[in-house]
């Protein structure tokens, strides 16, 4: 590894908690992590090292944080209270803020109709099961507009507003 260009303060930008510095590489976070079986594997311990060492370019290119299934086993088991799942989310946030291609397309769906998928449009199936019509936000344009206006005031939406415009 080349440390000559590493940024020693990077951890503060990504995951500003002293707990991270207590990580002692024990690898407890890897046992039981489903995504550690992936190819390439998600190795939480290694990501913690990369953040602490300030390997900015390598971290920007690393996709593995997105394979996390959010089961929070690592969070439960880490003996040093690093809160590795929070760290995973923080790496994703930092990547999204620094590289617009990382912004998950699902947030555009949520912005446009309130959900990642079409909810409440399967009326025939729902009726056949004896289910009531759902009061989804998609069916309440005024309310959806308020939700959108609120999101417009948040960093990810305001900074990438072109993704959210109706064409």
């Amino acid at each position, binding site marked *: 590894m080349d440390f000559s260009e590493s940024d020693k303060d990077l951890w503060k930008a990504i995951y500003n908690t002293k707990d991270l510095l207590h990580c002692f590489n024990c690898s407890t976070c890897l046992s*039981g992590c*489903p*995504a550690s*079986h*992936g*190819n390439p594997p*998600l190795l939480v311990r290694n990501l913690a090292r990369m953040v602490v060492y300030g390997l900015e370019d390598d971290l920007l290119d690393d*996709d593995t944080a*997105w*394979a*996390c*299934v*959010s*089961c*929070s*086993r690592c*969070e*439960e088991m880490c003996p040093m209270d690093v*809160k590795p*799942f929070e760290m995973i*989310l923080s790496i*994703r*946030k930092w990547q*999204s*803020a620094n590289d617009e291609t990382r*912004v*998950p397309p*699902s*947030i555009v769906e*949520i912005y446009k109709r*309130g*959900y*990642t*998928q*079409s*909810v*409440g*449009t*399967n009326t025939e*199936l*729902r009726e056949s*099961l*004896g*289910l009531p019509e*759902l*009061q*989804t*936000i998609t069916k*309440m344009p005024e*309310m959806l507009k*308020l*939700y959108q*206006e*609120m*999101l417009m*005031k*948040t*960093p*990810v*939406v305001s900074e990438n507003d072109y993704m959210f415009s109706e064409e």
Partner: protein
Amino acid sequence: MELCLFLGCNTPAIRPDVERAIRASMPELGVDLSDAEGYVCCPAFGAFPSTDDDSYLASSGWNLSIAEAKGLDIMVQCGSCYSSLRMGRDHLAHDETKLARVNELLELTGRKLECKTKVRHVSEILYNEVGAQKISQTIKKSLEGLHGVVQYPCHTLFPSEIVGFEESPRQPKALRILTEALGATVDTYSRELQCCGGAGGFSKSTPVEATAFVKSKLDAIIEETQADFIVVSCITCLMYLDNIQKKLNEAEGTDKYHIPVFDYNQLLALCMGFDPKQVASICTVPRNSVIDRI
């Protein structure tokens, strides 16, 4: 008691029979449900929680404020929704700066949040508020003679400090006891606490490895137990464990994987005598082997 039902998106959109089972069975046990009109995506961990805290917590706040305005706690079945809402609430309840910021955002929409509403999982309500005894007394039919295994949704176990409700998160028992209350025998197996691996990016970004991972779990069930069914209490576990078996059979040229998967409330509703066509009709692995014996 009355609770505000948070459905998420997979349940009403893809598996509405589970929604029907919940709406049918809970009131029979004295738990009335009120809809969360105008709710939005929980938000899913892969969405706003992966971009910034403002958009994450504003969405959590939006959902929490709907229940708070009704003066009700929230009840969730989807494991990820439960975890996302509960963690979001935890951030807001313990950090005044974050709560103030979210209220600033919510104010634009005419809402406000005091963070009074709690977020509870359906299996916790059934276990702690209703209780196994009341369930056994209420049902009209039973699962006697049937063996089941439990898939504990990890989103309801970890981190136990925030989302947990089991006496010991390392030895969860709520779903087992609830299933036994329906008359079934619950078998244990070596990989009982292994995650299904179906949520998040793992199964999408490396499907071959993810399939091998869940196969190890299904093989353990087949080799070590007499399971007639798998019971879950999370829509993602349900869809993944059900759908992956067909893919595994195709990939391996076998028909070895055919264990029916049920959400707990589906089994509960079936034992209460509700119509299987309404409460347990959508599945990949056929469920007749179980339904015909109830």
